[in-house]
């Protein structure tokens, strides 16, 4: 019943697709996993990565496995392919595929299934294709092996496949090598390889995590379309709830090696019956919600699977935990086709209402009327690319005449796809790179030409938080030394006081004082990012550049860090330049937002205005491409997926840089470069057609 409703609401289907769909309900499941447990032997002990997991997949449907890193979602999928590392051991369960238990097949039988009946697409398109072999051979290999095709037949099929996945000029692509293609194209090639032998089941492990949001939408639309047209069952593994809401028919939520909730996307999102699923949904920033509410995060971190808590794995983080929870709750049906593993799943609605007052709103930031703390005026950064023997040198315009300002206590969100120049702009603001042109006014004085003494003084007031909490902390220094170092360098405190200040900073970012003696590798990703924040705060800065500061974190941890940043802003009156590719996060945290494309600001407005009333076709495309974690909204949203990819900054298109991908481009857009102009008060757009 639920699936039928879902179908009716979803985008229109072709007759052929509908007949394929209706066949599924009567048909047998193509994949049935029951009671699957997998463990790894590590030097620290036994890790039970997957415990008693079961799910079914019917032909032509898209089933999502959602969970945070380490929840066992990839391991369960790799078990289906029997591609687990040698240290892994399947301790129980069956994986029935098309009537056969894959776990009982010998290696040769399994090899004949892999790539033929079951295919897999991996996360990293950059590394998943062999760099030294031609695309053509890599696509044709399974055709030779499984179908015994001749060279010509395989080549014809490869061309057909490349056309199917939307790659232009397929014939010449066959001769190319992976490094000659972009990330999105490589993922299309991976899909072509997966589809080569008409598989019955396609497993996609975070297929778009490494891709930009517009490319992500293109790839997922393609997969959804192919699964409908060809009747292929798709298992999609992801941490992105928006993707699940937009594309999945059914969802399995995993937490600490177990499935805690499963059901149709509508049921799980509309009426989650497990506190973890509820927590995730309220912890994720949403494109359709502003910064009014603090994110309701799940406290703590997922358990260490070497020593998982007894009973319900979520118990230590659960707001509703009771004594009974020390006994593992079974995954039981709470309504037709909707199962949850929680003793209190039926009471959750009531309980949530009781605790609802605890939502604390974010107070309006006190934006003082004094001038902006940071002003960028026509800032540019060009990188010369050295020519070769016969090649002339070229100029990459990474940042091109950017004008922005940030008031004290304000957050300016800077969004754009990878390669648009947003990180370079962040580096230029910090003078980690020198600007080629323009003025950087920080508290009124120009940094663009400041000497090193001046910069040293200014650096006390400007700090940075980086994306990667793993590589931005020195592994050989203790947390205390890492946080204390800037204070020593800038001689902010006498040495004997630093220790106390470090403890104070640690508690400010929600860590314990004893962690000062730990090394970075002993901390989790979220804790490391907190250390990075404490280090930035140590010199009492007024302005912090957050360069993708929460992108590498899991949803529940990401929410905690966002809340922390917002809380600190209120408490200390900080200003942020928040650089990110995730629109929902930017929407949540920013007062003002600037959208960047190929080195230029294309739209600049207060956050609410920009998200409610986007003017530039690129902003509109970005918003359309980003999924919202709510199937009910997703089913009614129009899908306008822009085609094409970010052009090379070495050869920017003439005129408006967006014109080759723009749905409303006219002749003039290929000639004239549109300047930023004022559409409404505070709303700037660089487009001549709106």
């Amino acid at each position: 019943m639920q699936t039928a409703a879902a179908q009716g609401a979803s985008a229109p289907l072709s007759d052929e697709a509908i007949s394929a769909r209706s066949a599924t309900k009567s048909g047998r499941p193509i994949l049935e996993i029951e009671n699957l447990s997998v463990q790894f032997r590590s030097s620290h002990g036994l890790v039970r990565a997957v415990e008693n997991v079961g799910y079914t997949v019917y032909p032509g449907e898209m089933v999502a496995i959602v969970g945070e890193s380490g929840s066992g979602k990839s391991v369960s999928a790799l078990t289906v392919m029997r591609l687990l590392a040698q240290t892994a051991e399947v301790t129980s369960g069956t994986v029935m595929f098309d009537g056969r238990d894959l776990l009982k097949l010998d290696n040769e039988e399994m090899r004949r299934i892999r790539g033929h009946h079951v295919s897999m697409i991996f996360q990293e398109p950059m590394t998943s294709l062999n760099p030294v072999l031609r695309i053509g051979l890599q696509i044709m290999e399974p055709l030779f092996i499984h179908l015994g095709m001749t060279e010509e037949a395989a080549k014809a099929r490869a061309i057909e496949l490349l056309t199917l996945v939307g790659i232009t000029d397929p014939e010449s692509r066959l001769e190319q090598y992976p490094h000659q293609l972009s990330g999105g194209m490589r993922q299309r090639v991976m899909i072509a390889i997966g589809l080569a032998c008409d598989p019955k089941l396609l497993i996609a492990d975070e297929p778009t995590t490494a891709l930009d949001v517009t490319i992500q939408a293109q790839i997922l639309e393609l997969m959804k379309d192919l699964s409908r047209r060809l009747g292929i069952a798709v298992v999609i593994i992801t941490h992105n709830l928006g993707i699940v809401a937009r594309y999945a028919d059914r969802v399995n939520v995993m937490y600490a090696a177990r499935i805690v909730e499963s059901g149709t996307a509508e049921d799980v999102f509309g009426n989650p019956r497990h506190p973890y699923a509820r927590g995730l949904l309220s912890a994720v920033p949403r494109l359709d919600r502003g910064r009014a509410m603090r994110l309701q995060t799940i406290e703590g971190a997922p358990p260490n699977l070497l020593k998982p808590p007894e009973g319900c794995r979520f118990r230590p983080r659960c707001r509703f935990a009771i004594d009974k929870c020390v006994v593992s709750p079974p995954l039981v049906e709470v309504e037709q086709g909707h199962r949850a593993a929680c003793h209190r799943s039926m009471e959750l609605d009531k309980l949530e209402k009781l605790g609802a007052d605890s939502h604390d709103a974010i107070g309006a930031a006190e934006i003082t009327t004094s001038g902006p703390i940071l002003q960028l005026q026509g800032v540019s950064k060009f990188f010369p690319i050295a020519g070769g023997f016969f090649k002339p040198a070229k100029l990459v315009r990474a940042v091109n005449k950017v004008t922005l300002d940030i008031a004290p206590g304000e957050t300016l969100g800077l969004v754009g796809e990878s390669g648009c120049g947003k990180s370079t702009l962040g580096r230029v603001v910090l003078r980690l790179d020198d600007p080629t042109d323009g003025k950087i006014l920080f508290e009124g004085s120009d940094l663009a030409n400041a000497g090193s003494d001046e910069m040293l003084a200014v650096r006390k007031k400007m700090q940075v938080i980086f994306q990667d909490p793993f590589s931005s902390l020195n592994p050989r220094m203790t947390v205390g030394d890492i946080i204390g170092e800037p204070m020593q360098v800038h001689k902010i405190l006498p040495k004997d006081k630093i220790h106390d200040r470090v403890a104070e900073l640690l508690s400010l970012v929600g860590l314990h004082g004893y962690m000062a003696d730990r090394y970075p590798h002993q901390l989790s990703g979220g804790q490391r990012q907190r250390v990075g924040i404490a280090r930035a705060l140590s010199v009492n800065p007024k302005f912090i550049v957050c360069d993708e500061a929460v992108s590498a974190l899991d949803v529940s941890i990401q929410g905690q860090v966002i809340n922390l940043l917002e809380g600190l802003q209120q408490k200390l009156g900080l200003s942020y330049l928040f650089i990110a590719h995730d629109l929902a996060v930017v929407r949540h945290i920013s007062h003002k937002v600037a959208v960047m494309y190929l080195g230029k600001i294309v739209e600049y407005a207060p956050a609410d205005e920009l998200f409610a009333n986007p003017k530039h076709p690129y902003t509109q495309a970005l918003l359309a491409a980003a999924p919202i974690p709510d199937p009910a909204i997703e089913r009614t949203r129009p899908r306008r997926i822009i085609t094409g990819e970010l052009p090379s900054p070495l050869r920017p298109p003439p005129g408006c840089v967006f014109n080759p991908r723009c749905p409303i481009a006219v002749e003039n857009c290929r000639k004239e470069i549109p300047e930023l102009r004022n559409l409404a008060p505070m709303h700037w757009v660089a487009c001549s057609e709106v």
Partner: protein
Amino acid sequence: MFRYVVKRLLLMIPTLFGAAVLIFLLMRAIPGDICYLRLAAGGGTVAPDVLRICRAELGLDQPLIAQFLTFIKGLVTFDFGKSMWTNRPIIEEIGLRFQLSLQVAIMATLTAILIAIPLGTISAVRQNTWIDYFVRTFTIAGIAMPSFWLGILIILGILITSKAWFGVAWMPPIRYVPLWEDPWYNLSMLIWPALATGYRYSAVATRMTRSALLEVLREDYVRTARAKGLYEKLVINRHALRNALLPVVTVLGIEFAFLMGGLVVTEQVFNLNGLGKLFVESVLNHDYQMTQILVMLVVAIFAFTNFVVDILYAWLDPRIRYTR
């Protein structure tokens, strides 16, 4: 690709010139005098006049810059002059010895490749099994054992077994005959030093193959290849090994160049008249001209093997082919 090759070739010129400057100056900085050595080697005194005449003959009385220009001119025109010690043309002195050293180096390289790639591959694919332990022990022994010592063992082994089996002690021949004149005779002489040096060489290359392959086997594209359902043999040979060969090629190149000039002791053990021996003698005799030319020869060999390695890189890895 053509541009890449030309670029690599042109890059050899500054390397060679730099080496020429360096060796010329270093030779002059070493205390001692060839004329003094030649005339008063047995002790006793030499009249200053005689010394002066000797030096004038060898051109040593000229200003340094003039001597250097003569040296460079000789290099460019391939007129290497005469040995200051024996007075025979250097090209003649080097000729046969170069042939011999080159042949030993090539044979050792072939031995190394034939041993290293299969052994390293098996060892990586069957990591932590008895065969891997065996290979690791075998290679550690190869690295630890000096090749000249292994050479002595080989000679002793030949003597003892030939005596035991045929009743007559057989020794490998000592006089060098080029391969095309009498291949059997030539090989029966040079196979032993090639094996002795090839063992150590293969040990280095085996370990490199093993560790490079282990790394590549963890790469995503190997997992992709398996997910396609390819035969394991194809996964290893086509997908993994080709990527793993890059560092192995580098090691092979460096070792090969080293074998061309650095086999001093091993040559001694097998009584070979190779470049290594000539090298040591020319340095001891302060034979400036000979030493300079030999150093330049070795530098040229290094530069050339590096060039070949670069070409192999480009052939193995399209990313290099297309981006440079």
